[in-house]
């Protein structure tokens, strides 16, 4: 695959998206600025998840754990010790990374369905610890009244702050996925046996990727806490782990920007639909079934196949191997 070529086809779209993300909050109402912030944070979360799903080929169903750890670290440090936000964010990323290192050490030993369930089991572990530890985390009451620093109290300022951080994080992830490390991940995804045969310690590589993914999930969680002002243990629940999966599948897990597109579609639709009905889950459920049945590559994947029908080494298009 070509490094810049892929980017170049996106250049126009990237410039457009960037321009839109700068101008849009100034023309839409305050409600939609909140939605835009959510799109950015969840887009970062989904992109971090996709490091495992799209690039490593493993489905994690416990990504919300690292998001929750990030959100709780920031929230606890702000409310209990009034520590400045940048420090909280660094600590969140670090905490999420440490937890991802501990859990990931075991998770990368498994693949496929076992990987999915072990990540989920660890996720539920984190969820129940947060849920039951009333003295420290507030249990199922969550934490309310998390103040954003005075500078970021204004929602527009918080938007541009989030935009800046998310773009920086995306650039870092872009370079990671297009580095030799990123290509090793793709090799492991496509054929882990052959990758092992050329002398690569695949578990080590997978663990590093797992930690990176957990750290960015932690960053997105830590952006969420002061934005939403209150957090609840549900952020770490397995149901919340499903959202980045949905976003990646809607947008297309094989392109770098797929989860981001998925986040735009999912979050926008969610805000729009919940405006007039509480039955959002049934809407997204039907959309997901439709995408799984008829658009297996997601929106970007399908568009790309329509415009550039190049052969893509798509593991998701490969027929499932029978035992």
């Amino acid at each position, binding site marked *: 695959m070509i490094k810049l070529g892929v980017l170049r086809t996106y250049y126009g779209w990237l410039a457009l998206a960037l321009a839109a993300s700068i101008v849009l909050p100034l023309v839409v109402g305050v409600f939609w600025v909140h939605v835009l912030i959510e799109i950015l944070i969840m887009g970062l979360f989904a992109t971090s998840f996709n490091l495992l*799903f799209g690039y490593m080929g493993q*489905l994690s*169903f416990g990504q919300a754990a690292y998001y929750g750890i990030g959100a709780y670290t920031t929230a606890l440090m702000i409310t209990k010790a009034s520590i400045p936000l940048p420090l909280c964010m660094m600590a969140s990323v670090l905490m999420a990374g440490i937890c991802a290192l501990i859990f990931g050490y*075991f998770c990368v*030993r*498994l*693949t*496929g*369905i*076992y990987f*999915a*369930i*072990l990540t*989920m*089991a*660890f996720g*539920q*572990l984190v969820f*129940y*610890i947060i849920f*039951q*530890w009333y003295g420290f985390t507030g249990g199922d009451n969550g934490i309310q009244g998390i103040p954003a620093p005075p500078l970021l109290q204004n929602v527009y300022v918080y938007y541009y702050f989030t935009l800046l951080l998310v773009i920086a994080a995306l650039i870092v992830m872009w370079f990671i996925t297009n580095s030799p490390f990123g290509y090793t991940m793709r090799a492991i995804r496509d054929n882990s046996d052959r990758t092992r045969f050329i002398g690569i310690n695949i578990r080590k590589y997978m663990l590093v990727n797992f930690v990176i993914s957990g750290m960015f999930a932690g960053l997105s969680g830590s952006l969420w806490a002061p934005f939403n002002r209150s957090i609840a243990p549900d952020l770490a629940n*397995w*149901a919340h782990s*499903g959202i980045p*999966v*949905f976003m990646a*599948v809607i947008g297309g897990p094989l392109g770098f920007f797929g989860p981001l597109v998925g986040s735009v579609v999912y979050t926008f639709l969610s805000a729009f639909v919940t405006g007039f009905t509480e*039955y959002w*889950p*049934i809407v*997204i*459920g*039907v959309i*997901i*079934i439709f995408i*799984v*049945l008829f658009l*297996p590559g997601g929106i970007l994947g399908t568009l790309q196949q329509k415009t550039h029908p190049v052969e893509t080494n798509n*593991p*998701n298009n*490969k*027929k*499932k191997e*029978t*035992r």
Partner: protein
Amino acid sequence: MTESQLFSQFLSGVSRGMILFFISSGLTLIFGVMNILNFAHASFWLVGAYFTWTFWKILYSPIFGLWISIPLAALTMAGIGWILEVVLIRRVYNRTLSEQLLLTYALVLIIGDVIKLTWGVEDRIVARPQGMEGFIDILGAPFPTYYIFVITLGGFVAWGLWWLLQKTKFGRTVRAAVFSREMVGALGIPVHRIYTGVFALSLFIAGLAGGVQAPISSITLGMDMSIIVECFAVVVIGGFGSLPGALVGSLIVGLVYSFAILVVPKMALVLIFVVTAIVLIVRPWGLFGTPMRA
């Protein structure tokens, strides 16, 4: 803590395990035969409980109401399962693991809302049938009579499933289809109909479990979301696709929970996932399973 209290705690662990077994037996059956991990299985269980409530309300008979409602709910679920397999599940047998998981997860969301639309958001309560409202004395400690029925039925379902899979033609065909789908098809047996049958059977048991659950506690939205992860724990501990594994796993999870709640009440659920994680790390295919699709 006296011996009799411990024993009644043991029995309540077993009855909790039985409910888990009802759901996870279907889960493991679907996985073993069709290689699909059905996220929505507990949601079907919850729908079964709501159906039981509806039938129970219509029949309005304190003696027979529940005994008729439970089989009716189970049959309804079997019918729903039959239709669902033909319309939807059949289309994803050849898809990747993640697509199958997503499809069944989407079903969880849809079913949750369908329940809300059909039965509303308030809790539903089904009274225990006449003669089973009270407690009986077991070694000097009171134990709910209804739980005795739950445990007995659990044993009966376990035996029934074993009999069905080991002793009948249907069971032999199912086991052959697990072994080699192509060969069974080549012998002229319509494999897709076997699959539909297994899916309907699994939903029948889920419906049965929902009906049995209905008088235990009030029926609430979201019950399915928390129990499904426990059922995953059961299936992981017992081994994917293994029915004896599902039984043993259910008992382990049920007992660990009911004793942990005595000693470290806050850690009970955490402990279950610790056990699950340990089993997955040490022996990913579980106690009774064989290494399968990675």
